[in-house]
């Protein structure tokens, strides 16, 4: 790791050519701050493909996003990244130098990057910022650096968590519940507006999931057919989840075909509004409780 500051790779992202006038707002601190979409999800859920699709979609709407890749171990990044952690940190070198295995390598790479993250933030502009996170979710959600990066972003820009789920793997109600509990755990960790993306709708339609989220009894029936494990506990957990669902934003998407994206952006602007309310609430409460 040399001492040179990070350089934003502007050429990579500006394929569209012109910078939007609102892009400079981040520097001037004036009106529209860029909205950050932090894309989280389990490995294999389709985060990177989703970011790729989202990027293409935004380019088509002439709103090229600012894209950041935070996965140090990915082979190829299929979208033009403005900032790529791999430019700053060489994951294989890190493993070698510190004698780490692959997981240790990813976490350490992220740690190294987090120390420079304030520099990254100076470059952020455009209307939308997309952040692709490492494949294994806990490397980001259960690590100090993941937390640092998320909190740094959230304190400077409106942020929304986009949680990508593999719909085809969630048809089993037990898996579904397990996955939703985990999503809920991330909601509590980040405390940010939350959108669940049921991805891979090209393989299977997500209406079963919507039904489970809207009809508690339907979910319980499906669950009872699968398992009798501590049924009181699972029933109580379903009730907790029911509460979670009632205010959850869910969009069915196929990153491959691109379906669902318009609906997604409707939800994104709703979520952005929620962020505004949240910040003003926190400001207020801080005034009431200065410590």
């Amino acid at each position, binding site marked *: 790791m040399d001492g040179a500051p990070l350089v934003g790779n502007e050429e990579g992202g500006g394929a569209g050519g012109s910078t939007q006038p609102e892009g400079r707002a981040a520097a001037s601190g004036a009106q529209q701050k860029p909205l950050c979409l932090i894309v989280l999800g389990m490995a*294999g859920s389709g985060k990177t493909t989703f970011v790729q699709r989202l990027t293409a979609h935004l380019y088509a709407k002439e709103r090229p996003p600012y894209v950041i890749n935070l996965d140090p171990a990915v082979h190829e990044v299929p979208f033009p990244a403005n900032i790529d952690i791999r430019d700053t940190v060489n994951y294989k070198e890190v493993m070698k130098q510190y004698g780490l295995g*692959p997981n240790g390598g990813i*976490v350490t790479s992220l740690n190294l990057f987090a120390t420079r993250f304030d520099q990254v933030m100076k470059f952020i502009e455009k209307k939308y910022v997309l952040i692709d996170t490492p494949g294994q979710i806990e490397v980001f959600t259960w690590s100090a650096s993941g937390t640092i990066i998320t909190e740094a972003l959230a304190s400077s820009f409106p942020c929304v968590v986009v949680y990508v789920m*593999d719909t085809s793997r969630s048809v089993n109600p037990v898996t579904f519940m397990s996955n939703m509990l985990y999503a809920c755990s991330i909601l509590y*960790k980040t405390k940010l507006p939350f959108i669940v993306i049921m991805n891979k709708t090209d393989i299977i339609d997500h209406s079963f999931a919507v039904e489970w989220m809207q009809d508690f009894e339907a979910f319980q029936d499906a669950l009872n057919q699968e398992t009798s494990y501590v049924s009181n506990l699972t029933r109580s957990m379903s009730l907790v989840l029911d509460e979670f669902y009632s205010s959850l934003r869910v969009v069915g998407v196929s990153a491959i075909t691109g379906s669902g994206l318009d609906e997604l952006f409707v939800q994104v602007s709703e979520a952005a509004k929620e962020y505004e309310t949240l910040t003003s609430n926190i400001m207020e409460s801080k005034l009431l409780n200065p410590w």
Partner: protein
Amino acid sequence: MPRFAQLVMGPAGSGKSTYCSTLVQHAETIGRSVQVVNLDPAAEHFHYPVMADIRELIQVDDVMEDDSLRFGPNGGLVFCMEYFANNFDWLEECLGHVDDDYILFDCPGQIELYTHLPVMKQLVEKLQQWEFRVCGVFLVDSQFMVETFKFISGVLAALSAMTSLEIPQVNIMTKMDLLSHKAKKEIEKYLDPDMYSMMEDNALGLRSKKFKKLTKAICGLIDDYSMVRFLPFDRTDEEGMNIVLQHIDFSIQYGEDLEFKEPRETEEEPSNANYDDFFQDKVDD
């Protein structure tokens, strides 16, 4: 005669391997025999001798280097675990069949293995077929729990794992010895949580009605089901470790049908040159 297993799980960096080595040492001091099996194909190195190591069967590095497969670290791990699931007889051979075995299975961290892949569930079923009583032990780094919302996040992650495995589970907060004095006091609130008062303290932090209702529902759950609570783990505190062990033993009913056994002698002199004591023990079994 049943055998006993702990499946040691938790996010990366939560301290699973340290937990295993500490527990093994602790067990020795109270005259019990505890062994460890490493099931993490991406593990680096350990501080303890293991009974079996999945890396002898298959290693993530080798998988990732294989040109025909071209996997990244996650794909590599999934491949290893699925390979393992197709070769349980390897594990069966390593475990042998000693009655009254008490074995810790040091598992990989990735949550996908518990929620999306059937491999961990298959392992549990296999172990149960081999007459093991299995308890899940879910570890979370206490440094990540020092605040109401984060604590709840930890509880939910533990529940997420619990739901998919369908075995008794004990949740542990690790690295308590690394907490500052202030943080320790904070965490103590969550160890025997009177959740409702905790909620009131943070009423100002609960920014919206929706969060309030959800938090209330979760607190109710924690209150009603002690299984969901966390135990502290401080590797410098023998008493605390005893408590953890007792909880786990209780959940798998260890000790209920033990035959009376001579306690193992702790070695105070250099070991007997022809290992008489060692062989003597074996014969008595």
